[in-house]
């Protein structure tokens, strides 16, 4: 009787296609990932169990920590328009180059008069610049103007369809009166609904 010979199969598979796919995906993820820029005012946010993600655009973040207030707007066009508006309000002119630079930078915490020097700095120097915070006193409330003008800018740019969302990113150790003050500034402009930026944690604490 003829013996049926089993064909000896090779155990190695062709990995080329798999490798191609893997690297394609890898390239995609690397390119879409945004590099994390060190914040000008690092804060330790408290954590909560509520998980809703913040939007990427049309968002203003007010950072409160160490007694200082910093401000950040997401979205380049909104930033440019806001800077233009703020310049007009405070009698300052920002060149095209300065506007473009401002559109690309992150949060800042200087009075409007000191903004030009911050714009001129390199990204790495901005974090070291020891920015003193945006004035929020009742006499010189620049945060109020930043908010008002950036909200207007968002509405103008979107043709009235979108509203600027406000998020407060507070340091866990910041005392309540200061947070209350920011909330009061927001409520004075009839912003009664906003987000609090928090970290993540489980329910079991």
């Amino acid at each position, binding site marked *: 009787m003829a013996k049926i010979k089993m064909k000896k199969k090779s155990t*190695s598979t062709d990995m080329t296609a798999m490798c191609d796919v893997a690297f394609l*995906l890898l390239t995609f993820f690397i390119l879409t990932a*945004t590099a994390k820029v060190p914040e000008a005012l690092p804060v330790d946010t408290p954590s909560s169990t*509520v998980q809703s993600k913040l939007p990427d655009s049309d968002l203003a973040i007010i950072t409160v920590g160490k007694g200082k207030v910093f401000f950040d707007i997401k979205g380049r066009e909104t930033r440019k328009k806001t800077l233009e508006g703020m310049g007009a309000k405070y009698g300052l002119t920002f060149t095209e180059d300065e506007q473009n630079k401002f559109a690309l930078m992150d949060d800042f915490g200087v009075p409007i008069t000191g903004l030009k020097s911050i714009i001129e700095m390199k990204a790495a120097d901005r974090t070291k610049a020891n920015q003193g915070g945006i004035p929020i006193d009742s006499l010189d409330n620049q945060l109020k103007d930043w908010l008002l003008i950036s909200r207007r800018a968002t509405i103008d740019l979107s043709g009235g369809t979108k509203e600027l969302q406000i998020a407060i990113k*507070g340091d866990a150790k910041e005392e*309540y009166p200061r947070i209350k003050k920011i909330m009061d500034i927001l409520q004075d402009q009839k912003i*009664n609904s*906003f987000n609090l930026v928090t970290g993540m944690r489980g329910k079991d604490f």
Partner: protein
Amino acid sequence: MAELNTGDGGGGKNGGKVRSKKQSSKVDLTAMVDLAFLLITFFMLTTSLSKPQSMDLSLPDKNPDETKKDETKVDENRTMTVMLKADNKMTYYMGLLEAPKVGPKDIAYGKDGIRRELLKQKQNVLAYSAAKGNPGKGIIVIIKPTKKSNYRNLVDILDEMAITGVDTYAIVPEFTPEETKLAEKN
């Protein structure tokens, strides 16, 4: 796995002719794929996890017009007042401070402290409302953050509201003299 069988085609027989070895053109890609997938996982997770989380907070409209101030009367049996004090401490009581139903008692944050109490009182209030003939009216929590409390305390207590499902709460940073006394007592 790797095709490394470089056929030694009897090179010795051919009278000293040096033959270059026939190399297999296949390379083992396993390690490379491993690495690639590891990096993919890393980038996938970091891009989605680096987005900040947030908590929604809606405050009632500030009424600058004093004459329009609405005088909503609430049943004091349904209210629970939570005072956030200095050094991460907290005091709570049910009902009015002059005649509290429960407390005032110091309580800790977390699942064994305020959360258990909130859930218990929530049940009590629901039972009370049902007995009075208007079921569904739940507990009302009044959060009173003192000047010495910090932002973490506020977020923690708001988080407890979200966990325990208490949806009627108010942040009232106004204190009567008696309340101030209670808040300063340790």
